């Protein structure tokens, strides 16, 4: 087996080695914060940003929640500069974070000096603050779009394939945290994000569409409800999703996420 820069999924349905590793980094950052009394040990977005800063070869990371143009809520940042870069983009109304959200695509800017024509206000202000490179990743799953993970570093140059792969997993995890904080399960004891949004689980996305129609809610809420049910019942998300797709399980708008026999 090659020991190159790509970690393989070993088994169907489990967590990939890479995902397990990223989760362990975030958990370690959360535990470290608890030890110093800064945090309560929950897998929080603040811990995620600190872990991203430490592990991705960058100087800072931030997560911003966005639901549409002009809705821009800072959630967490690993440092002052990371937070400031987000504020600058709101001020100027331009930048990689906004573009990543608008185009639903990563925005990889290995050299900010090359994009001064595209983002004159933001690029100029960021360069003045010693930022050389910015990488922004949408927190999305299909039509669900909840925000952006942004990284910055002083040195210019592209991310390595390994850093990029890890960052994409960080972004998946950030999306899950946003979804789970909307349903509140992230505050429950024993909470642990699952690994089934990004890894080839078509059935989860199909079930999301079905539950959205059953409950008359948007896709994000439908997926949050599916995840909350999986957590509460302690069953894998893809099993709950398979029950929905095969019509063994319906979500009832009156009764909350209750099973309703046909």
């Amino acid at each position, binding site marked *: 087996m*090659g020991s190159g820069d790509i970690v393989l999924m070993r088994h169907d349905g489990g967590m990939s080695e890479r995902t397990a590793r990223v989760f362990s980094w975030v958990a370690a950052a959360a535990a470290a914060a608890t030890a110093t009394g800064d945090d309560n040990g929950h897998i929080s977005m603040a811990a995620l940003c600190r872990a991203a800063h430490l592990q991705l070869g960058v100087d800072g990371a931030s997560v911003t929640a966005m639901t549409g143009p002009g809705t821009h809520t800072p959630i967490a940042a690993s440092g002052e500069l990371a937070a400031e870069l987000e504020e600058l983009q709101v001020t100027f109304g331009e930048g990689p974070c906004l573009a990543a959200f608008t185009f639903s695509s990563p925005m990889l800017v290995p050299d900010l000096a090359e994009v001064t024509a595209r983002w004159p206000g933001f690029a100029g202000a960021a360069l003045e603050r010693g930022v050389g490179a910015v990488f922004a990743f949408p927190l999305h*799953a299909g039509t669900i779009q909840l925000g952006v993970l942004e990284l910055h570093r002083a040195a210019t140059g592209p991310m390595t394939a390994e850093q990029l792969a890890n960052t994409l997993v960080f972004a998946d995890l950030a999306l899950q945290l946003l979804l789970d904080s909307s349903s509140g399960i992230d505050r429950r004891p024993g909470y642990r994000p699952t690994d089934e949004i990004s890894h*080839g689980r078509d059935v989860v*996305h199909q079930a999301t569409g079905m539950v*959205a129609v059953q409950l008359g809610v948007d896709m994000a809420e439908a997926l949050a409800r599916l995840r909350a049910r999986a957590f509460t019942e302690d069953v894998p998300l893809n099993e709950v999703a398979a029950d929905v797709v095969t019509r063994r399980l319906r979500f009832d708008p009156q009764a909350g996420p209750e099973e309703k026999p046909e």
Partner: protein
Amino acid sequence: MVRGMAMREQRVTDAFVELADTLVAGFDAVEFLHTLTERCVELLDADTAGLLLSDERGSLRLVAASTGETRLLELFELQEQEGPSLECYHSRQVVTLPDVNQETERWPRFTATAAELGFSGVHAIPMQLRTQIIGTLTLFRTHPDGLDEADARLGKALVDVATIGLLSERAVRHQEMVTEQLQTALNSRVTVEQAKGVLAERHGVTTDQAFAAMRRHARSRNQRLDEVAGEAIAGGLRIADTGTDGLTLTHTRSGRT
């Protein structure tokens, strides 16, 4: 015959030129990979081709195929979980399956689906440059046995030139652009899955029927599948049973263009 040979040679040359040309303005990585699958089917003794790419997190995802047929797409998507494409990706070697019926124990779901669709020979080529592997191109044949040696070499060469083009660092922005486009393409597939669920629930059809209706709609209007999916999710399209044509999508408001 001689004339036919010369024409083929010309087509091969054209394909190489086309696949080497990745540094054009407005380069579209996904469109480029579609072209690769189409050229392989045209030039090689193969009936259909599909391209699975690493999602950059370590899993394989179908991003392009020479066909739009739902059942064939499923055969490729199945290989995100098992089959010769995944084997090729893990081993970084060409995997040739002379007859799917001889591998039923190793890959039960894959071989059953392939046999059901009338395929017997499979040939999977890794897309790699030096130590970096990014995915696989897999060819299917309705008749048994692998590609002959000349076709196998040509297939490998076409895949290699395309891979080198994709991973090219000649243009500063190229790598970033390819990543951005591929991640966007992967997310489009999620949108399509969500739309299948929406249509299936709203109209009491299966997700397969919903998918077939979306594909037919996209093809007849020359629209991208993820655009149709987005419209379906937004409530702009509904399924109608037109009898002879089966299930089709129509706009919910009359007079809409």
